[in-house]
C-alpha cells in the first residue's frame, strides 16, 4: 500500500479548509479507502472537533515527531467508518515544533499503511504551510468566490509552482448560486479565469455545514445535503473518476439562456 498525500491549503483563513479535510477524508473512507488525516495547524487545532473526536485525544503530531509515542498510538480511529484515522495537532506548542523534513519522514512511515493521507494546512504561507505541503503529492487549494480569498489562493498557487508542488487543484467553497445569478458573486468561470488552474470541486453554501460542525458529524457521512454531495464528488475525482460538475453546469446553462456573459 502506498498512500497518496493530499494537502488542503488556502492562504486565507476561514474559507473552509478544516471542514473540507474532514469531509473529503470521510467521503474517501466511506468508499472503502483507508484514510488518515493530519491536523497541521499546531497551536490552533480544530480538525478533532469537526470530526467529533476531541474527547479521544491522548497523543498528538508533536508527540510522534519528538518520539514520545509510536505513530500508531497517535492515530485516533473514527468508529463510524472502518478505516478513518486522525492524527491531531498539538495544542500547547507552535509551528516551529515541526519541520518540513519531520513531515516527510512521518508521511513516509504512514504511506505503507494507508491509501490516503489528507493534511489540513494552517492559514498563511509561513512555516505551518511549508510543513503541510512538504510531503504532498497533490495540493488542493480552497477558495471562496470573494476578492480576498481569490487573491490569497493566487498567492498560494504561485508558491506551489515555485516549490514544484503544482499544479494545484482548486475547490471553490461556499458558492451561492442565487448571488451569482444576480451578479453579486464571482462565478465559477470568473474564478477559473482569474486563477487559471484545474477545478476539482464546487461546494455550494449550505447551512448544514454549521449544523454538522455543532454535532461533530461531518456532512459527507450521509451525503444527502448539497455540500455533503459536493465533498463526495471531490473524493471520487481524487480517486480518478470523471464526475461532471452537475448542479453548476445547469446553473451555467441557465445563465447562458438569460444572456449573461
Amino acid at each position, binding site marked *: 500500500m502506498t498512500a497518496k498525500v493530499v494537502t488542503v491549503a488556502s492562504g486565507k483563513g476561514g474559507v473552509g479548509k478544516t471542514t473540507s479535510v474532514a469531509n473529503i477524508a470521510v467521503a474517501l473512507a466511506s468508499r472503502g479507502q483507508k484514510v488518515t488525516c493530519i491536523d497541521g495547524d499546531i497551536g490552533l487545532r480544530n480538525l478533532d472537533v469537526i470530526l467529533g473526536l476531541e474527547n479521544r485525544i491522548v497523543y498528538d503530531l508533536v508527540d510522534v515527531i519528538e518520539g514520545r509515542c509510536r505513530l500508531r498510538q497517535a492515530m485516533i480511529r473514527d468508529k463510524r467508518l472502518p478505516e478513518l484515522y486522525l492524527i491531531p495537532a498539538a495544542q500547547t506548542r507552535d509551528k516551529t515544533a515541526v519541520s518540513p523534513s519531520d513531515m516527510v519522514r512521518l508521511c513516509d512511515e504512514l504511506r505503507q499503511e494507508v491509501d490516503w493521507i489528507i493534511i489540513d494546512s494552517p492559514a498563511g504561507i509561513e512555516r505551518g504551510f511549508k510543513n503541510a505541503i512538504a510531503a504532498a503529492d497533490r495540493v488542493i487549494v480552497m477558495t471562496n468566490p470573494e*476578492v480576498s480569498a481569490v487573491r490569497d489562493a493566487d498567492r498560494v498557487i*504561485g508558491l506551489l509552482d515555485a516549490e514544484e508542488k503544482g499544479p494545484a487543484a482548486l475547490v471553490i467553497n461556499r458558492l451561492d448560486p442565487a448571488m451569482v445569478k444576480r451578479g453579486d458573486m464571482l462565478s465559477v468561470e470568473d474564478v477559473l479565469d482569474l486563477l*487559471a488552474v484545474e477545478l476539482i470541486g464546487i461546494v455550494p453554501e449550505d447551512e448544514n455545514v454549521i449544523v454538522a460542525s455543532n454535532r461533530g458529524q461531518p456532512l459527507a457521512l450521509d451525503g444527502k445535503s448539497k455540500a455533503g454531495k459536493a465533498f463526495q464528488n471531490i473524493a471520487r475525482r481524487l480517486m480518478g473518476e470523471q464526475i461532471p460538475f452537475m448542479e453548476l453546469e445547469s446553473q451555467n446553462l441557465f445563465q447562458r439562456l438569460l444572456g449573461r456573459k
Partner: protein
Amino acid sequence: MMAFLFGRKKSANSAKERLQLVLIHDRTDLTPAELDSLKDDLIETISRHIDIDPTAVTINVARDGRSQRLVADIPLRSVGRRRVR
C-alpha cells in the same frame, strides 16, 4: 437591467476587474509607477535608434493563463511621411 437604470455595475464585475489588476501586480511585483518608469526608459532607448512617437507608445502587462507577458505597442514614424513631397 436594474443596474443599467441606476447606472451601477454588478458587484461581481467590479470584483473581477479589481482582481485582474491586483493579481498582475501580486504575480509580477510590478507597480504602476515602475511600469511608467520602464515605459520612459524604453522610449528613450528605442528613440536613440529609430524615430517613434512617444505619445503613442503603450505598454501593458497581459495575462496568459498563469503567466504574464509585457506587451509594448510602439508605432514607428514612417520615413516617407516625414519627407517633403
